[in-house]
Each structure stands twice: as structure tokens, then as C-alpha cells.
């Protein structure tokens, strides 16, 4: 039987043909987010080996970056992790600012923090929603998407775009918080909490949900560090590492928030960490907002930066904690107005390379759950 099916499937994957069925999942598959592909060898439903293949969304961003000026590259960073574009923008801005050796005014920092944390909530909401959809629970996704629309509304008020925000610029932020934010935020905070609560009640203690997620592709901390995991994936394995606490950038050292960690590194821990992080993000926004309101109205938002940005020759690396983990920009400058080499260190790239090891010996259903819980965003994976 295995042989007969063999002829139908198209694989360019691992060549060894055993008694196992090669099952090609993706790139067009409901759970593959459009551009991922996994070539598996299965014994019945059990996965013997899985090899992810990427590059279906490789758009040459890094090469493009070498041909654009520093300011022109900013909009391209939106298209990396499009679920939380603002984090990418800020990461890039911070990297260039580090190369220039400047620090932006405090008010701009607070604005960036507020927007970044909102983006983090939006990103986690998509993740939790999609995880639910992939495990068969469709309804929470819709509840979360409604809240996401509200967050988009704030983005739109502030800088005019929903998804690809291009927020701020090198040296600061252009606009203050929109007036409507002051009314909107208290209401929105409650509704986000309500949606999270609804999701929590629908999923967390649901027996089927627990069966499907607890203990599924658990990963130990040593392996995770060896594979280069960061962010929620690493925290789920029990390592308390958050760049916001460990290498504070912007003003994160002034805020009071927890870093939730898991124990087993399974899908459930990843899901729970994201749920808890949303709450922490709300806390951070509250504090940042209070600090923002204490600022004088005429406090500067922008640092003076020359029109044409020419960082001195040298190479820098700056990383921030994006919703997925450590998002870093390496910039090598040759003293001209274009970066000589720009390298993005996407967080999900490192996680996804361990995918074969994560899902080995699990079942096809777990592969889907695992993929959703990693939160692979093809844009930043392939660049």
C-alpha cells in the first residue's frame, strides 16, 4: 500500500524510502500559514521523521536593504513579522540609533513601549486564536479577532495603518498619543481582558484541550538553549529569560511586570505563557500610560537626526524582545547612507529549525498543534 501512494506524492525531501509513507504537508495546507512545508515520513499516524522546508516567502529583504537608505528600509521591516509590525519597526530604529549613538527622548520611548505592547497583545491574540482553530475550536478565534480590530483602530489613529504600521522614525516618534486613546484605553483594557477570559473559559480547562496540549511535544531547557530558542518558547521550557528584563532597552527597567515561565515546554505551556503575557502587557501599558500622562505636553518626541543618516563605519547588533522572542538587527555600516550589510535575526527561525526534533514520534495532529504553537511567521522566517 505504501508503495502505491508513494507515486502520487511529490517530494524533493529526504530520499530514503523505507516502509514509511512520505506525507507532504504544505505549502498550501490549512495549518501551514500559506508558505511552510513539512515533509514527513509516517508510520500510520506516527511521525518517524519530519523535515521542514522553507523559503517559499523569501523575498530578498536583506539584499534589498543593502540597496536602500536607512530611512527607506524602515517600511520593509513591517513586512517581516506582520502580526506585530511595530516591534520590528522599533527594533530596527533602535539598531540604527545604536549605530548612530543616540538615544531618543523619554516621551518617545514611552510611546514606543505602549505601541509595542499593544502589538504584542495583538500578536498573541492571533496565535492563541489560530492555535484554537488548528485544534478544532474555532470560536475563540473570532472573539480574539474582535479585540484585535480594536487595537488596530488605535494604531490607525496614531500612524494611519492597520497592519504594516511603519511606526515612528529613526530618532523618535512623529505623533503623540491620539486624543481618543485616553477614552478608549480603559474600555479596551476591560474588553481585552473579557475576551481573554472567555477564551480561557472555553479552552484552558476544557478536558479535550488539555488532552490535546499537555505533554505534547515537550522540550527540555538544555535542548532549547542548544537550538537557540528564545522568547515564549524558551520560557515555556522553564528558562526565565526576557530581554526586557535581562538587557533592558528603552525604559523597560522602570516597569514592574512578571515574566511567566512554564515547566515542560509543551504546547499547553506555550499557550498559557502567551495568555499570561497578554495580562503583563496590559500592566506595562497601564504604567507607561501613567508615566506618559505625567510628562509635560511640550516634551520633545524627536531627537535631532541629520536628514541623511550616515552612521560611522562599524558593525552593531541590537536585539529586542519581540512577541516571538529575540529579534535582532545586525547592521554593518561603511559610512555611506546605505547599510553595507543588514542581517535580521528572526526569532521563529531558530525555533522552527528544531521542528523535526520537536515532532518526532508524535502524531500528525500534534505536528499541527506544534506548528501553531511555535507561531512561525513566514515573513520573518524567510525574509
Amino acid at each position, binding site marked *: 500500500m505504501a508503495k502505491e501512494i508513494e*507515486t502520487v506524492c511529490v517530494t524533493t525531501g529526504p530520499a530514503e524510502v523505507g516502509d514509511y*509513507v512520505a506525507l507532504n504537508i504544505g505549502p498550501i*495546507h490549512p495549518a501551514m500559514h500559506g508558505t511552510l512545508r513539512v515533509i514527513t515520513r509516517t508510520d500510520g499516524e506516527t511521525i518517524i521523521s519530519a523535515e521542514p522546508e522553507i523559503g517559499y516567502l523569501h523575498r530578498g529583504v536583506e539584499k534589498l536593504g543593502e540597496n536602500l537608505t536607512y530611512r527607506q528600509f524602515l517600511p520593509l521591516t513591517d513586512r517581516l513579522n506582520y502580526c506585530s509590525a511595530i516591534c520590528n519597526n522599533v527594533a530596527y530604529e533602535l539598531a540604527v540609533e545604536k549605530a548612530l549613538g543616540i538615544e531618543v527622548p523619554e516621551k518617545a520611548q514611552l510611546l514606543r513601549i505602549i505601541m509595542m505592547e499593544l502589538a504584542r497583545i495583538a500578536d498573541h491574540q492571533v496565535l492563541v486564536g489560530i492555535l*484554537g482553530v488548528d485544534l478544532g475550536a474555532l*470560536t475563540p478565534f473570532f472573539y480574539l479577532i474582535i479585540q484585535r480590530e480594536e487595537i488596530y483602530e488605535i494604531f490607525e489613529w496614531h500612524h494611519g495603518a492597520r497592519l504594516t504600521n511603519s511606526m515612528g522614525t529613526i530618532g523618535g516618534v512623529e505623533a503623540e498619543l491620539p486624543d481618543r486613546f485616553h477614552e478608549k484605553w480603559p474600555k479596551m483594557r476591560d474588553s481585552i481582558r473579557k475576551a481573554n477570559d472567555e477564551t480561557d473559559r472555553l479552552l484552558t480547562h476544557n478536558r*479535550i484541550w488539555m488532552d490535546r496540549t499537555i505533554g505534547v511535544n515537550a522540550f527540555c531547557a538544555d535542548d532549547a538553549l542548544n537550538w537557540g530558542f528564545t522568547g515564549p518558547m524558551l520560557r515555556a521550557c522553564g528558562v526565565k529569560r526576557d530581554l526586557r528584563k535581562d538587557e533592558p532597552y528603552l525604559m523597560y527597567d522602570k516597569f514592574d511586570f512578571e515574566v511567566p515561565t512554564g515547566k515542560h515546554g509543551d504546547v499547553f505551556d506555550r499557550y498559557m505563557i502567551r495568555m499570561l503575557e497578554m495580562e503583563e502587557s496590559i500592566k506595562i501599558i497601564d504604567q507607561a500610560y501613567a508615566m506618559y500622562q505625567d510628562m509635560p505636553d511640550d516634551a520633545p518626541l524627536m531627537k535631532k537626526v541629520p536628514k541623511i543618516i550616515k552612521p560611522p563605519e562599524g558593525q552593531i547588533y541590537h536585539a529586542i524582545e519581540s512577541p516571538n522572542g529575540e529579534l535582532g538587527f545586525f547592521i554593518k555600516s561603511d559610512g555611506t547612507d546605505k547599510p553595507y550589510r543588514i542581517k535580521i535575526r528572526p526569532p521563529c527561525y531558530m525555533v522552527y529549525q528544531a521542528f523535526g526534533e520537536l515532532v518526532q514520534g508524535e502524531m500528525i495532529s500534534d505536528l*499541527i498543534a506544534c506548528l501553531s504553537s511555535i507561531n512561525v511567521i513566514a515573513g520573518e522566517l524567510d525574509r
Partner: protein
Amino acid sequence: MADWQIDLIKVVFIWVWALLIAVVMTWVERRASAMMQDRLGPNRAGPFGLFQPLADGIKLFTKEDIIPEKARKILFVLGPPLFALPAFSAYAVVPFGDKIVLGGKEIILQVSDVNIGFLYVLALGAIGVYGMVIGGWASNSKYSILGGLRATAQLISYEVPMGLALLTIVLLYGTFSLREMVLLQQGTFLGFLPNWGIFKQPLGFIIFLVAAYAEANRVPFDLPECESELVTGYHTEYGSMRLGLYLFGEYVNLGTLAAITVSLFFGGWALPYVDMSKFLGPVAYGIASFTVFFLKQAFFLFLFVWVRWTVPRFRYDQLMGLGWKALIPLGLVNLFVTALLVQLTI
């Protein structure tokens, strides 16, 4: 009127009724899911989008009919009807109303009161599986075949607890005829409870309901279809009206299962505490009993939809575990206890 004419009317009626339920159910499912998800749902085709299933049907009918090159042609064609037809046929033994006397003639509101109607339903349910398996196999696609294999394993495993749960009912009523079972459920029990199967066999009912969900391939047991894993499972390669038959058959199946649930556990057409035949004319009584039956059935149909949009999906091995490790032992214990009680009370 001759007997065959009456029979013909009944057959046509039940056929149309089953079709209607399936059609309306697709609409109900979409609108109800939309309601639960803060959406509107389809509302462009006809009032409230009521004609949405019709639009889908027209579209599916006029779509290009593709049979994949590497598919087994005959089996590929055979799959969908084999899935949909048994579901329709099972309606034949469902008693949808009481006996009425018209012009000195006794008419039973049931296509045929087979004395082993109960076994007939089970047997037809088992045939429906072949539609899925054959469809999955003939498509010659890996997702399809995985779906087909899952369907086989799932349906065969869940036939057993379902059968065990139903056996207790047979023990209780001492008959295989669905009509007699309904008749035996009239009156009250312990003085205040309606004499329904659910109160006499609560555990049996739960086992039956779970198994029914599995038989109908609904979330949390929709593994053969399993949109996020197997694309659309056994009917991945099907398009046009063949797909329509599969989708349609699923809803007909739901209708059958709901009807059987009502007949076995919820007193069929009879209202509790009230005997409608005493103050209603024969025709009115026929309609009333049918309405009662339909309302009960509608509740279960809605329950199917409700559960569908609430819970996540099982994993394959968990599904098997639930079937073999939980439901079957429970069913056996239930059967044993029931047998003991029946033996003691006689």
C-alpha cells in the same frame, strides 16, 4: 385509498422531510455558528439567507466535474451515493407520529413498522462508513486515505459502545421495534418522571450520545474530515455535486441520529403527562404528534451544532482510547446492571 397509495405518500413525505431537514440544517449551522461568533452569517440569498443552501446546490451542480486521473473511477463515483443513501433509508423505520384512524383505516405514521427496525438502523449506519472509506481510498490521495482510514477505525470502534448502549434499551423494553419502544415510554415512572428512556437509562443515553457524535463525524470527533490536519479528509479530491452529496449526507445522517435519539430516549412523538389523542381529532392529532416529534428532533439537531462550535477536536489515539477504554467498559457495566435489574423485577 389503497394501502400502496398511503405508503407512497408516506415515503414521499419522509423523503422530502429528510431533504428539507438537511437543507435547512446547512443554513442553521451557518447562521447559528455566526451567531455564536458575533458574526452575521450568510444573508444575501433570499430572506435571512434562507436560500443559501439552494445557491450552493445550483453552484455545485453547474461546476466542472473532476475525476482525478489516478483515481479509481468506479469507486470514486460510487463513494458519495453510498454515503448519502443509507442515511436516507434509515428514516424508513423512524416513527414520526402516532397511529391515526382515518375513514375507518388505521394509518401508522411510519413508513414501515419493521419488527427489527432497531437492527435495521444499526446496519444502515454501518454501511454509511463504506461511502467514506471507498471515497477516501478511490481518490488515491494521501490525505483522503488517511481520512478514510480514520473513518473506518473510528466508526467501527464507536459502533460497539453504541450497540451496547442500545442493547440495554432492548433489555428494558423487550422489543426490537422502534414503534413499540415509543409506545412503552408513555405514562410516568416513580410517580412524577415521564416514562422516558433517558430517566431509566441515563448512563446508556450518555454513551449513546457520545457514540452518535462519533458516528456523525462531528466535532469533537470529526477526525475523518479534520480540516486543519487532513485538508478536508476523505473528500479532499471531490468537487461539484459529489462533494454536495457528501456534505448533504452528513446532515441527513444528523437528522437520522437525532430522530433515533428522540424515539429511544425521549418518548418519540408523545408529550409527557398529556395524552393529545383524547381531545384532538385524528388529523389534528397526527399533525400534533408529528410536531412534537419534530421539535424534539430539532433540539438535538441544534445540540449537534452547538457542540460543534464549542469544543476542540480529539486526537486520533485519544479518540480510540475514549472508545475502547471508557465507553465500552461503561457500556458493559451498564448492560450488566440493567440485565440484573430486569431479571430481579420480573
